[in-house]
C-alpha cells in the first residue's frame, strides 16, 4: 500500500514567515502538537512543534547539564521572558527539519521512518517538487492495520 492511499489530505500548516506566537495559539486551539511549515507554493520547509518551541525557551546551559539544578532561579520569570522573545520571531527561526515521505512510499517504509524519527508526530507526504500533499501519523497506520485485522477492509 502506498502513502497517498492513507494520508490525511489538506492538513493544517504554518507559513514560514508567520509569527511563532500566533502559530502556537492556533496549534493549541486545534489541539495539534506539530504543524508542517510551508513557503509560498505549498513547498515544505520544515515543521514546528511544541518541543521545538520549548527547546528554544529552555536555556542551553540548563539543557546541556552544565547547571544541574536551579531551585534558586525565578523560573517562571525567566521562561516568560524567553517565551515573549520567541513569540515575536518568525517560524523559520524555530522550525526543525521535516520527516518527508513520497506519495508512492510503501506503508512499511513510512512506518519505519516514523520509528526512526521518534519525536515527529507524523510524516509529511510530498510530491516530486516537495509540495505538501498530506500527512501520515503512526495512529493513521495503526488504524489502517486494525481495520485490516478486523476484516473491514480488503488487503
Amino acid at each position, binding site marked *: 500500500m502506498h502513502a497517498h492511499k492513507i494520508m490525511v489530505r489538506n492538513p493544517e500548516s504554518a507559513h514560514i514567515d508567520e509569527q511563532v506566537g500566533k502559530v502556537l495559539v492556533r496549534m493549541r486551539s486545534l489541539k495539534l502538537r506539530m504543524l508542517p511549515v510551508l513557503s509560498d507554493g505549498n513547498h515544505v520547509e520544515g515543521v514546528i512543534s511544541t518541543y521545538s518551541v520549548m527547546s528554544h525557551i529552555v536555556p542551553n546551559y540548563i539543557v546541556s547539564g*552544565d547547571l544541574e539544578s536551579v531551585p*534558586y532561579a525565578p523560573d517562571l520569570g525567566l521562561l516568560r521572558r524567553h517565551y515573549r522573545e520567541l513569540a515575536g520571531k518568525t517560524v523559520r527561526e524555530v522550525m526543525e527539519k521535516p520527516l518527508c515521505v513520497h506519495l508512492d512510499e510503501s506503508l512499511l517504509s513510512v512506518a519505519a521512518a516514523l520509528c526512526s524519527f521518534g519525536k515527529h508526530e507524523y510524516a509529511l507526504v510530498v510530491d516530486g517538487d516537495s509540495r505538501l500533499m498530506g500527512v501520515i501519523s503512526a495512529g493513521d497506520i495503526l488504524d489502517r492495520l486494525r481495520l485490516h485485522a478486523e476484516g473491514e477492509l480488503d488487503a
Partner: protein
Amino acid sequence: MHDAPHVAGAVIFGLDPLWLAVGILLAIYAVVMLEKFNRAVLALLGAGMMILGGVLTQQQAVAGIDFNTIGLLTGMMVIVAISQKTGMFQYVAIRSAKVVRGRPWGVLVMLSVVTAVFSAFLDNVTTVLLVAPVTLLITDALGVRPYPYLFAQILASNIGGTATLIGDPPNIMIGSAAHLSFYDFLANLAPIIPLIFLMTLAAIWLMFGRDLHASEESRDLIMQFNEREAIKDATLLKKCLFVLALVIGGFTVAHDFHLEPATIAMSGAALLLLLQTWGQPLSEKDHAYEGIMAEVEWTTIFFFVGLFIIVTGVEHTGAIAWLAERTLALTGGDFNATLAAVLWISAVASALIDNIPFVATMIPMIHNMAPTFGGEAALVPLWWALALGACLGGNGSLIGASANLIVAGFAQRAGYPIRFLEFMKHAFLLMLLSIAVSHVYLYLRYLA
C-alpha cells in the same frame, strides 16, 4: 656544555644521556601540546622512558617527585570536592549579583571579585566550573551578552590564583621547591594583585562596560533569585567553612612550626572526610569516601608525578644547568636582566603552552643560578618573577590555563562561543599590561 652527565648506569643503546633525556622531554612536551592523548599518560610514559632508558634509576626517579606539591594538590582537591557539594559557590555568586541590585556593570565586577577570591584560596578550575554556569544564568536573566562576564571571569581566576601559595599549581610547585611559605606569597605577591585586578577591570570597562545595559524588569528578575535555595547542605557547609578556616590559618602559621603545606592540606582533607559523614553507618561512610576520591583530579596528580621524573632526568644529565648558564650568559649575569627575562619569557610561554611543565623546567634552572647571584636567598625575586609570569601569563590566550578552556566550553554549549582570536585580541594586551605592572613592582620592591 656543563659538566659531564652524572647518570646512574648504562644508557640504552649507548646513547648520549643528555640528548636522550632532552629528546624525551621535548617529545612529551610536543605531544602534550597536540592534545591528542591524555597528558598524565604521556608524562608517565616519559617518566618510564627515563628509567628504562637508563637516564635515572627508580630510586632517583622517586626522589625527584616533589611529594609536598602532590600532597598539597591532593589535599586541596579533596577539600574542594566536598565543599562544592554544599552550593556555597552558587550562593555567593547570586548574593553578589543582588548586592549591586542587578546593575550589569556591578554584577560583572562582583562576579569577578568572587571568582578572584575563590581562585586565591581554592583551585581556579573548580571556581570557574561552579561560578561560570551561574554567570550564564545571571546574564540570561539580565538579558545581556555573557561574553564580557565570562572574559572577566577567566582573567579574574588567573589573577586571583596568583596571589597565594595555593591559588595556582605553578605557585604550589614554586613554593615547595624554593621553601616559600603561604605567608611569603601573601606578603610578596598579594600586594600587587589588587592593582592588577583593578587595572584589568578598568580595561574591561573601556572595552565592554558602556554597552552593558539591562531593563528594570531584568534587574527585578535578579532580585527575585533566592540564593538560600542554592545551599544544598547547610550542616556540611558549616563543616567545610570550619575546616577551610583551619587550613588557611594553618597555612599562614605552618612555617613557624616547621610544617610543610602538604601536611596542613592533607590533615584538613582527612578531617573534613571524617566530619562529612560523622554519625553515619560505615557503609555510607565508605560510599561517600569513594565518591570524593573519584572526584580528585588524578590525571593532574599523575601528570605532576610523571613530569617531576622527566625533569629530574633532564636535570641529572646537566642539560638544565647548561640552559641556566646560557641564560646567564645572555643576560650578562645581570640580576635585573635575568629577572626581566624570567618574568617576560614565563608570561609569553605560559600564554602559549601549559604553564605546569614550563615551571617544572624553570625551577631547577633557577636553582642552578644560585652560585652566580650569591646563594639561594638571593634568588627569591626570581621566584616571584616566575610565579607572576607563569600565573598571569595564563591570561594571554584561551589555551593559557585550564580554567580558560573550561569557561570556553560552557560558553560554547550555551550557544555563545568564545573565539580563540577574539579572546586573544582582548586578553593578550591585558596580560602584557599586567606583566609590565608586575615588572615595575618587582623592580621597586626588590631591585631599586
